C-alpha cells in the first residue's frame, strides 16, 4: 500500500465514522423522545387521541430511521455520500467553526450587559477576522455603524426593544 492509498483509506474511514456517529445521534434522539413519553400527562377527561400518541409514533420513527441509517452505512454504504463527506473532510476547517460558535455565544451573552450597539460593534469585526478578513480597521468601522444604525432604527422607528447597555445615557 502506498502512502496515498493509506491516506485515502483513513479519510474514507473517517467519513464513515462521521456518518455512523450521525446515525447514533439520531438513534439517541429517538430513545430520548421515547423515554420522555411516560412523563407526558394524559390530562383529564376522555379524548380519542391523547397527547402521547404522536410523540410515541414520532419517537419510534426517529429510532427506526436512525437504525436503518446505521445499517445502511455498515452493510451498503452510500459511495456518493462518502465521497462527498470525504471531500468536505479534507477542506473543513474545524478551528473556524468552533471559534465562530464560541464568538456567537459570547455575543449573545454580552448583548444585555454591553448593549446591542456595542456588542455588535465588537462581534462583527471579530467574526469577520475569524472568517479570514485581514482589514481589521474597515471591519470595526462597518461593525460599529451596523450596530448603531440597527439599534437606532429598531428602537426609534420600528418600535422594537433592544438593550441599550453601557450606552444607555448616550443613545
Amino acid at each position: 500500500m502506498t502512502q496515498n492509498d493509506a491516506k485515502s483509506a483513513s479519510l474514507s474511514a473517517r467519513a464513515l465514522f462521521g456518518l455512523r456517529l450521525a446515525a447514533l445521534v439520531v438513534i439517541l434522539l429517538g430513545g430520548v423522545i421515547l423515554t420522555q413519553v411516560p412523563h407526558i400527562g394524559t390530562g383529564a377527561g376522555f379524548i380519542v387521541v391523547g397527547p402521547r400518541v404522536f410523540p410515541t409514533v414520532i419517537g419510534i420513527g426517529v429510532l427506526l430511521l436512525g437504525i436503518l441509517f446505521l445499517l445502511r452505512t455498515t452493510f451498503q454504504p452510500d459511495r456518493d455520500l462518502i465521497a462527498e463527506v470525504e471531500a468536505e473532510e479534507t477542506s473543513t476547517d474545524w478551528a473556524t467553526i468552533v471559534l465562530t460558535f464560541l464568538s456567537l455565544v459570547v455575543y449573545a451573552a454580552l448583548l444585555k450587559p454591553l448593549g446591542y450597539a456595542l456588542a455588535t460593534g465588537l462581534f462583527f469585526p471579530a467574526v469577520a477576522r475569524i472568517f479570514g478578513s485581514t482589514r481589521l480597521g474597515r471591519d470595526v468601522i462597518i461593525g460599529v455603524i451596523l450596530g448603531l444604525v440597527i439599534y437606532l432604527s429598531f428602537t426609534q422607528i420600528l418600535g422594537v426593544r433592544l438593550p441599550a447597555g453601557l450606552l444607555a445615557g448616550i443613545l
Partner: protein
Amino acid sequence: MDVFTNLLHGFASALTPQYLLLAALGVTLGTAIGVLPGIGPALTVALLLPLTYNFDPTGALIMFAGIYYGGMYGGSTTSILLNTPGESASVATTFEGFAMAKSGRGGAALATSAIGSFVAGTISTLLLTFVAPIIAKIALLFQPADYFSLTVLAFMSVTALVGKSFLRGMTSLFIGLFIGLIGIDVLTGQPRLTFGMPELLDGIDVVVVAVGLFAVGEALYVASQIRNTKDEILPVKKGIWMTKEEWKRSWPAWLRGTLIGFPFGALPAGGAEIPTFLSYTTEKRLSKNKEEWGHGAIEGVAGPEAANNAAFSGVLVPLLTLGLPTSATAAILLVAFQIYNLQPGPLLFQKSPDLVWALIASLYIGNVMLLILNLPLIRIWIKILEIPRTLLYAGILVFGTLGVYSMSNSFVDVMIMYAIGVLGFFMRRYGFPVGPTILGVILLPMAEAQFRRALSISQGDLSVFVTRPLSLGLLLMAVGAVLLPYVPVLIARLRRKPVESRRIVFGDGQED
C-alpha cells in the same frame, strides 16, 4: 365575472401609495438577497417576521410576496455570473447560464432570464387568479381526514422527490416533527418534551428554527470551507439584450417552462426545484441545436427560469386555498399569515377577500417592477456580488441573531437558535436536506389536530382515512410520490438492462 370585480378591487387597493411602496421595497430587497449567494427568500422572510408585527397584514404580506418573487429573479444572476445558485431553484440555470457567460454571452443570458421570468410570472399569476377561487370552493368539501392525508402527501412528496436519499429526507422530516411537538399540547394543556425547561412550554418558534437552520447553519457551513473556496465573477461585456435569433429561441422555452412550472408548484412536491430540472431536460430533448448544450444554449436558461417563476404562483395556490405550504419559503409565508391571525384555507377567500385580492394584484405589479429592476438596473445588482464573503457571512450572523433576539430579548431563544444552527451545519455536512425539517415543524400541529378531529368524528375508527375517497386518493398519491423515483430502475430491471442509477434525483433539497 366575480373574479374580475374582485381583481379590480384588489388593484384599487394594491395601487395605493403605501402598498406600492411596500411592494417595491419587497421586490428590491428580494432581488438583492436573491443575488447574494447562500441566502434565499425563506431566510429573509423569517428574519423580517419579527419586524413586521406592527404592520398591517396586507402590507406585510405584499412585501413578503415581493421578497419571494424578487428572490426568484435575483437567483438567476448568481447562477449565470458566478456558477453559484442563490437558491436551489436556480441550480438548473447554472448549467447553460454559466456556459453562456463564459463565452461572453452573459448579457443575453441575463436578459432571457429576466424577460422569461416576467412572461412566466404574469401568465402564472393570471392562472392563479382563476384557479385559486375554484380550488378554494373544492377545498370546502375537505374534512379532517382529508386534511390529514393532505399533510401526509406534502410530507412524502417533499421528502421523496427532493434530496438524494429518501432515508435521509425522512430523518430530516422526523427531526422537524420532533421539534414541532415540543411545548404545551393544545388539546389537553399537557407539556410535551419540554425537558423541564419553562422556556420550551410555548414551543420553539418557527422563526428560531428557520433562522437557526438556514442562517446560522449555512454560515457555519460556509465558514468551514471559507479558506478553501475562491469565487470569480464573470464580467458582462456586451449590453444586456438579445438578438433576433435568441428571441426566437427563447419564446417557446418561456411558454413551456411556464406550463411546467405552474402545475408543479401547485402540487405538494417541493416548490420550484423539480419543475426547473424538468424544464431543462425538456428543452434539451426538444432542441434542434443539440451540439450547443453544455456550451451555452439559451433555451437551457429561458426554460428553467420561466419554470422557476411560474412555480412561485403555483405554490400560492395550495398555500392560499388549503393552508398547505409546499416549499420552505411557503412554509414561512404560512407563519406570516398566522402571526396576523389569518388562517389560509378555503375560508380565507370568504373572510378576507380584500387581503387575498390585493395580494394577487400586487403580484402583477411586482412583476412589472422586477422587470425594470432586473433589466436596466442589473449592473447595480452585479455590484452586490463584490461584497467580500467574510463580511457577508458576518452580517448574516448579526441579522440572524437580531431577528431572534428582537422577538423577546431572550438569551435562551438565541441559544436554542444557535443549537439548531449547529444541527443545520451537521445536516448539511452529512447530506441531510433541511427543507423537510422546516416543513415538519410547521405542519405537525395541523397534521395532529386534523388527525385527532378525524378520529373523534369516526369515534376512533382508523379506517376513516381509507374509506373516504378523497382521503384515499391523497394517500395513494403519497405512495406514488415515494415510488416515483424508482420507476426508471424498475423499468430497466424489467427490460433486463443494466441499471445506471438507483433512483432519479430531482434536486439537492437545500432550499433556503
